[in-house]
């Protein structure tokens, strides 16, 4: 492997160096060093920034800000993010979680990127050197992104409104068959007033289950009332096929697991 690593104290300086051809940003290394080890010759040099704000977690004023270098392990052990810990723990084993970063997960192709599925359900904003955009906009354009992600921000959800499920064949650590994150707001009588559902492995990157979200409005979480939402859960999906599962299998089991998540 012939890689040159440049380290900068600020994101601004690192971002300038990132514009050179063949240069990638080094976060935790679980994607980019892996690619280099695998023989990806498009990676010839790496840059990283050591700005402290990249590794900071802030929970205040009803908002959560995760620096792009924050690791899955740091999220999993943060006392105010216990509700989000299942999504952070869904990423890899203990060593990977000590390395894999929030910023990197936004770029992880399916079947990886389980944490980004949670961020999609949470309607996060992604801040980069060139501005802040909604996560859906960011995910749609991530392949052309040449600006270093600095943080993600989202509103702290109400207690028990966030749900996450990862389905894998090997326990406790395995690659995703699929992952689902849901943010459900409910009225006092239990009817759903807003729903936002993120899906992993149902496309090459996290996507929303918009038809199911719409069908859930006004429903209570009972088997009968969620049935119409489950019937349209597959709308718009284009699941991946890999050694873990075929696209057909993933599509078949998605409504089953969405139902289990909603009724849990």
């Amino acid at each position, binding site marked *: 492997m012939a890689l040159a690593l440049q380290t900068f104290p600020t994101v601004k300086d690192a971002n300038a160096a990132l514009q050179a051809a063949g240069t990638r940003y080094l976060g935790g290394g679980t994607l980019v060093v892996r690619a280099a080890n695998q023989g990806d010759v498009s990676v010839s*040099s790496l840059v990283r920034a050591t700005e402290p704000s990249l590794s900071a977690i802030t929970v205040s004023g009803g908002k959560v800000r995760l620096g792009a270098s924050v690791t899955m392990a740091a999220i999993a052990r943060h006392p105010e993010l216990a509700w989000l810990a299942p999504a952070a723990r869904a990423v890899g084993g203990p060593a990977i979680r000590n390395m894999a970063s929030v910023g990197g997960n936004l770029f992880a192709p399916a079947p990886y990127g389980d944490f980004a599925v949670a961020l999609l359900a949470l309607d996060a904003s992604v801040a980069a050197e060139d501005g802040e955009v909604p996560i859906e906009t960011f995910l749609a354009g991530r392949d052309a992104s040449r600006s270093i992600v600095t943080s993600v921000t989202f509103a702290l959800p109400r207690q028990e409104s966030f749900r996450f499920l990862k389905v894998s064949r090997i326990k406790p650590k395995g690659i995703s068959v699929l992952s689902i994150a849901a943010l459900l707001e409910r009225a006092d009588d239990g009817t759903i007033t807003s729903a936002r559902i993120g899906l992993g492995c149902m496309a090459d990157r996290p996507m929303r289950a918009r038809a199911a979200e719409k069908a859930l409005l006004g429903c209570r979480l009972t088997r009968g009332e969620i049935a119409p939402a489950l019937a349209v859960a597959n709308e718009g999906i284009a699941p991946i096929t890999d050694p873990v599962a075929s696209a057909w299998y993933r599509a078949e089991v998605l409504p089953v697991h969405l139902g289990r998540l909603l009724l849990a």
Partner: protein
Amino acid sequence: MAKVPVQFTLNGSEKAEFIDSGTTLLHALRDKIGDTSPKGGCHQGTCGACSVIVDGELRLSCLTLAETCNGAVIRTTAGLAEGGVLHPLQRAFLDAFATQCGFCTPGMIMAAKVLLDRTPSPSREEVVEALSGNICRCTGYEPIIQAVLSAARSNSQNVA
């Protein structure tokens, strides 16, 4: 390729080397420093055979660039025995027949050490979780799990 300096503490000894920029910690340890206890298995972050402890945290040395470890304190399985006496985890792995081909063993022991340093009396579930990033193709895992539980019991008896 430009050479860059790296300096860290490895198993209690100061190490300083000039390496090619972009060298992984695994290659720096094995090829420059001569500590061959971390194994290069998949080089993809999947098998855990290259696991080492960096500043108290388990990391995969195959995906860690050595330059990012400047000033760090690194522990590998090669540094566990003291004065010719095996570490309790090493002893337990031998006693429980938790080693067959041995390739995964150093990574397993590092993962187990981090667990026992933080959770001296882990449950079986905690052991399974701690070892979940390490693959063994020989033992079927049960002897390894039993070895870690045995080392934990042995530690607690020694403390008592």
